[in-house]
């Protein structure tokens, strides 16, 4: 079975919540499949966004491309609505000036309908999130 990236608007995913919104750099840029476009935070941490798949998916690997993110927490939900989030992982990322952070998380397969990304702290006043990739196989709800 071929693995899919579920964090794509073309796969039916939506960003249903984001705590910052600059209309030039909207959260939809995270799921447009491109690293060139990004979402910016516009001040004060923590900041977060929630991706909804509108179906239950099985994920085995998550990748996030971002810049200046320090502490990142990821949570998952298996509910139809964006509630009952459970802890997935929390990590302090490393950062090199001028280089996009590409962070991969491998897991034993888990089910999710929503993913929540919380940026708890940052290396600077603002951060960017360019792309999130959730690889796995789809399942009917």
């Amino acid at each position, binding site marked *: 079975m071929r693995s899919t990236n579920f964090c794509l608007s073309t796969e039916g995913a939506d960003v249903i919540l984001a705590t910052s919104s600059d209309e030039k*750099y909207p959260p939809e840029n995270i799921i447009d499949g491109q690293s060139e476009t990004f979402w910016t935070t*516009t001040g004060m941490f923590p900041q977060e966004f929630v991706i909804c798949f509108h179906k239950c998916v099985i994920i085995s690997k998550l990748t996030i491309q971002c810049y200046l993110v320090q502490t990142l927490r990821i949570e998952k939900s298996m509910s139809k609505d964006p509630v009952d989030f459970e802890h997935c992982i929390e990590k302090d990322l490393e950062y090199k000036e001028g280089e996009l952070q590409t962070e991969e998380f491998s897991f034993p397969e888990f089910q999710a309908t929503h993913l929540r990304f919380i940026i708890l*702290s940052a290396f600077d006043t603002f951060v960017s999130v360019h792309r999130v990739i959730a690889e796995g196989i789809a399942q009917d709800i």
Partner: protein
Amino acid sequence: MVKLAAKCIVAGDPAVGKSALVQMFCNDGAHFQKNYTLTTGVELLVKTVPVPETSDSVELFIFDSAGMELFSEMLDKLWEQPNAACIVYDVTNEQSFNNCAKWLEKLRTQTSGVHIPGVLVGNKTDLIDRRVVEQKQAQEWAETSGLEYCEISVKEMENYEVPFHILANSFHQLYKEKVEIFHSLVNWKTGANQATDIKDL
């Protein structure tokens, strides 16, 4: 259009007029606090400031800190992750000016090397006869410390909006600079890079 949000710390010695300034700014000059009340801990006020010549604005979360707390550890928690600093002194009180260095140092320990916009504010310029801190002296110290400078009289309602407009504009400028950097990160359309590799998925 974007609305930025900044945590703005107002610091300085007791009775230099921090609360009077913040109150005056937040109620648009409607009311000058005649009676002195000592602030304890921190008071939070929120006001949105438009950025000139743009449709953008900055929502300032103004943390009016107690002047008595220079050496208190409680402030460390309340001051976490600041985005802008407003350090106030009284132009008739030399000690309050000298202590600005300590307030700035205390703020810098919170920023872990991140540059944040800051402004030094000399208040009570209406008390001309009692003035002891000269503008030149204060302005020079502000410059060497990487701060903007302005003089105000909250009582006479002079320039009381200026410090916050300076901070909002600097914060907006900082955002624009960061966005430019974010753009420059992914100019790697040629060659086999991670960004282009992952795109195939």
